[in-house]
């Protein structure tokens, strides 16, 4: 799943523009991810600051 490090995020919207699923949205200074996210990692790659991270699902 996608983890947003809010202390790092510069809320610029770079990630939103490349998301193939349209799963990200920038609401003023708050980046939201919805359940369309496939954890493809494109957003994490392009982020100028490294605020996004795809983490392995923890299976319970």
């Amino acid at each position, binding site marked *: 799943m996608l983890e947003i490090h809010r202390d790092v995020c510069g809320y*610029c919207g*770079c990630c*939103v*523009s*490349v998301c193939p699923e*349209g799963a990200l949205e*920038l609401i003023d200074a708050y980046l939201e991810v919805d359940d369309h996210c496939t954890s493809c990692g494109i957003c994490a790659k392009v*982020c100028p600051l*490294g605020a996004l991270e795809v983490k392995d699902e923890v299976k319970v």
Partner: protein
Amino acid sequence: MKSRYDLLVIGGGPAGAIAARTAAKAGHSVLLVEKRPAIGAPVRCAEGIGKEALAEFVEPDERWISAELKRAEIVAPDGASMLLEADLAGSKVGYILDRKVFDRELVWQAAGAGAEVMVKTRASAPLMEQGAVRGAVLETCGEQKKVHADITIAADGVESKFSRWCGVDTTVPVREIMSSCQYLMTDIDIDETCTTFFLGNKVAPEGYLWIFPKGRRTANVGIGISGKKSGAGHRAKDYLDRFVKTRFPEGKTIECIVGGVSVCRPLERTVADGLIIAGDAGRVVDPLTGGGIYNAMYTGNLAAEVASKAIGDGTLDAAALMPYDKGWRASTMGKAIERNYHIKEYLIKQPDEKLNAIIHSAKCLDMKDFSTLTLVKELMKRNPKLVAELAVLKASL
């Protein structure tokens, strides 16, 4: 806020503001909504624009001009530089704006022309009627309201979502997003009338690094790199930090901003039934320079003109709005986007040695005007091989 307007404009940047101003001047009822609490902030821009380009839409005003430009410098990967001088040495060729004040001024003008403005107001869904866009659901401070409009202009920037909700795919390919970072630095030694561009695969892979003066001993120092080249440990900020550390070790950073700039081709279609897409949301940024302020104002203005006519005629479908799409593509701006896309595609594939050779071909170029077209023509004169390598451009030069 009423429940019905002729025109709903989503986004309060230069595209939205000029669209709202033009439509309001034409006598239409207009609502402009901006999701952020303040127009123009935070800045997402290196703030450069050409002199004539700016004057086409607004009279220059010292309140929002940070610096007047007289020349530009391109620095090769090996450090050699090429100076671009105006034909008439010392004449003004462009500006670095203060976007916080500039954007606010444009919205001010839109309001002055009669447009309603709402900040901290977000369009969260389109209102669809028989497949056509007829306004939007607006959210403001926890309240939701449906606002109907004959035509909606999506000018919601690089992070645009509205058009996507209306069925238009706006995804920027990962290799064509410029992942960008910029510091506003002060107490640094710079030429306060010169923009400097640094090229090279080590400095800024598939992009460039810039120093744009912002007044006394102050500049926007920023970088854009291809999303393809970005990753952990080698992001835009990493490259910028490395540059700043050696170039301006004593400089003080008083602002740090980030952003994404699309350098892809524009959307295949920038209209739908009841919808026009303008500015960065339409992906009309210049793919070579990454400049988008003029293109935003141009498309915003044209969007409002075409919308105004369509509303007057009472036909609001995509066919009635196509003059917008066709219009900007056929304009000087549209042709420059297409041409510069090819030049960009060529340049990003060149190794540093080739970039060095091109820049070594002249110490100083006299430019009859400060356009990328003039620059490319001058470079071709000095690098005959480029003519063959850029053969695809032949018709447009």
